[in-house]
């Protein structure tokens, strides 16, 4: 059964995010750093009257920081808190069929935790990711 997926670019790669995880897509303004927190936490940002925790996706994937900080983010709601997951760019939203990862494929260190399958877009396979896996400090991560 096809599901709606948001196609985004993350650390230079195209990824598919299941739309149920996405609350909205925003441009993040000023980010207030949180001293002492892990590198994945870029800081806090105000989204209207809400405070969201901004996740540095490259750091969460264990990649070196980018030259230019991204400003677009996908807002997701996990365990009572809102997180802004930074993305490089967003492409479109379309229904796709979620397929399991092809046998024998082992993802790289940072991607291993978050990849949860793949979709096929115009013959090009795109990794489907679970945003919750990018959020640090959760009590339990559902598979």
């Amino acid at each position, binding site marked *: 059964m096809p599901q709606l997926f948001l196609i985004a670019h993350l650390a230079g790669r195209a990824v598919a995010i299941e739309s149920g995880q996405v609350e909205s897509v925003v441009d993040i303004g*000023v980010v*207030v*750093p*949180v*001293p*002492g*927190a*892990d590198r*994945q*936490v870029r*800081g*806090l*940002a*105000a989204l*209207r*009257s*809400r*405070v969201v*925790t901004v996740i540095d996706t490259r750091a969460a994937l264990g990649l070196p920081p980018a030259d230019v900080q991204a400003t677009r983010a996908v807002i997701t709601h996990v*365990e*009572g*808190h809102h*997180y802004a997951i930074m993305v490089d760019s967003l492409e479109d939203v379309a229904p796709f069929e979620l397929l399991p990862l092809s046998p024998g494929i082992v993802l790289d260190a940072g991607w291993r935790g978050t990849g949860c399958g793949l979709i096929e877009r115009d013959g090009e396979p795109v990794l489907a990711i679970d945003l919750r896996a990018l*959020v*640090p*400090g*959760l*009590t339990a991560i559902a598979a």
Partner: protein
Amino acid sequence: MDDLLQEFIAETRETLEALSGEIIAWEAAPDDRERLDAIFRFVHTVKGSCGFLDLPRLARLSHAAEDVLDAVRSGTRLPDTRLVNAVLAIVDRIGVIVEAIDAGSALDDSGEDQLIAALEEGAVVLDQAPVPVPLRNPTRSVRLNVDLLDRMMSGMSDMVLARNELARRLRDEGADPSVEAALERLSLTVAEMRDTVTRTRMQKIDALFSALPRMVRDTGAELGKSVMLHMEGSDVELDREMIEMMRDPLVHIVRNSIDHGIEFPAERRAHGKRENGRLSVAARQSGNQIIIEISDDGRGIDTERLIAAMVAQGRSESELRALSEKAKLELIFEAGVSTKDSVTAISGRGVGMDVVRANVEQIGGRIELSNTPGKGLRIAIHVPLTLSIIATIGVGVGGQRFAISRQVIEEIVRVGGDAIRIDMLGDTAMATVRDRRMPLVDLGTMLGFDRDEDQARMLVIVGVPGGSYALAVPQVLDHEELVIKPAAPAVMVTGVYAGQTLPDSGLPMLLLDCAGIAAMAGLQFGREIAIDEAVVEEQAPRVSALLFDDLDGVRRLVPLAIIDRIEPVAIESVKFSAGRLRLSTENGIIPLVVQGEWAERHSLSVLRLRDGAAEIGYAIGEALDIVTLPEKIAPSRDVGPIAGVVSLDGEQVELLDLYWLFSTHGATRSDEKPPLCLIDGVDTAWMKTFLKPVLEGAGYRVATKLKADETAAVILTMNGDASAAKNGGAPVVRLRHDATAVDARDASVYRYDRDGLLAALAVSAGGR
């Protein structure tokens, strides 16, 4: 108390509604343990509540039903249909009484004895005449869904931010005054609305604490125990939902503490404790939790007796003994456990604790016990913080702002002041603030900012459980009331933040957790001492004082309580007359005390000081402020108008010596009626002319004739005048013409012996 009653009614009504299903289910299956427990909890809660609401009828009914249900729970009675009916009749009756209380209508209590009697084993079944349910009185309160309130709150915050944005735009573009006025009006309304909306969701924890003093007193009195209650942190504002959920657990724990924990005075004496038991209830925020701590200095939990009681109920002894000490303590949370031999109306069988834990866990909280056998028990209820309004101080470090809860701040001092030192002990920094030594934590270093960038210039002295430390910060900004929400786990895991907030600036801000910072810095404080200190502090109430500039330019203090009023007076009403400076007032002349030049001035401000009887005026230059009088006073070298000097924000300020002022200047009494000295007999002309001013100066009223309703305190007459001494039982002082007495037995006084005369009068008139 009315609020509490209303809440009790609303709650009972609600539980009853929820319970009606359970009751019917129980009727169908009397063996159903869960249903039984639910009904038991209901009557138990009603019993607990009406204990301190003083509702004896409800207390009697619920206590009786509780007894029977407990017997069923422990298996000594079987829940047959008759018993179920009897219990249900009581539950119904409780509902009827509650409605009657709400409506304020009378309800006769006939039949209640029968209801209770019907609970007895082998009682005759009675047909209850159905009681007409009185009509509900509509109340001016509604219960709302919390989600609705939450939506309202976030809508409100959005509105504030939109207003800010609009204001910014208008400022940038230079709008015309009429638009600005409209915006101003909008701002006011928005601010007011925000306050109101916030209050719909928040409540001071005081709402939870306010019932405690009365409850502790009543419970203590009922049991013949004397308990001193100490409360802390009652101004923390919390989610109403949370406050509601905490009410029952808190009441149960406090009652249990008094009933089970605190010993009888005689027993306490025998154990070398002070007779008054001490119970302390404190609320504080720590991290993303609210902790309510109830500690007593009673006997603690005797795990041996607990195990014995459980064994008596048929539990395996070896199994219980194998438990860890912590697990043994937690046995008190099991249903139906008590180490108490008799059941009282206060708390009963250790039930409650299972209810307490159920309630707390329902809201995602937990209970921690810390037991010192023979010394006391500390129960800490941890509940997650959903949101709270906290008065905060903003601090700036590394170009970023953080908030610190005002509640934990003892004071803020500037580095470099005379009384402030920072030293290094080895590699450990230590601050000395006016002879108080305490650990120093540099916030910038702690948060990983570059230390050289901005030097810490201010010390925020914060109190954490067990002690205080100085937090060094570069900047102290401003004071703000903030709505604090919990931060994401990834932020909380750092251990230095208590929550996050969105101030009007639109930039998120973090609230620092001072206890967490202390823990991160590895500070260790002893706990026992701190509790003692807190009690001592409480016993010394703070005295307010007026700070003023005196006429001689010196800044001085005078306790506020003594000041009747401050008023400006015209310089003409001040005059040096009859040996001293006096002030004419609307009702007479009072002594005026002046330190410094006054004659040049056009008018004076005068403090009218009153010690209850005497009144004096004290001329000052200018009243400045009302301050709290420091406890430490360095006494003055000489006796005089200055009692000593105190330190106020590092400044030396003199304190007026009231005792000296009144003993020196306040001789004439203006309030009290002076005792009447009756001059009687012949020679009254001499006495009137010569003695009257002397006597009046000494504080007597002088008369030569008594009015109808007067009695003389003392009668003065010339020696050998037989016409005197006819005026009732008043003592008589006699004067003689000769300097030396003719007769050794003669008790009279030489008429020009001023001191002797006044002394004799004083003795006779009764110690004046």
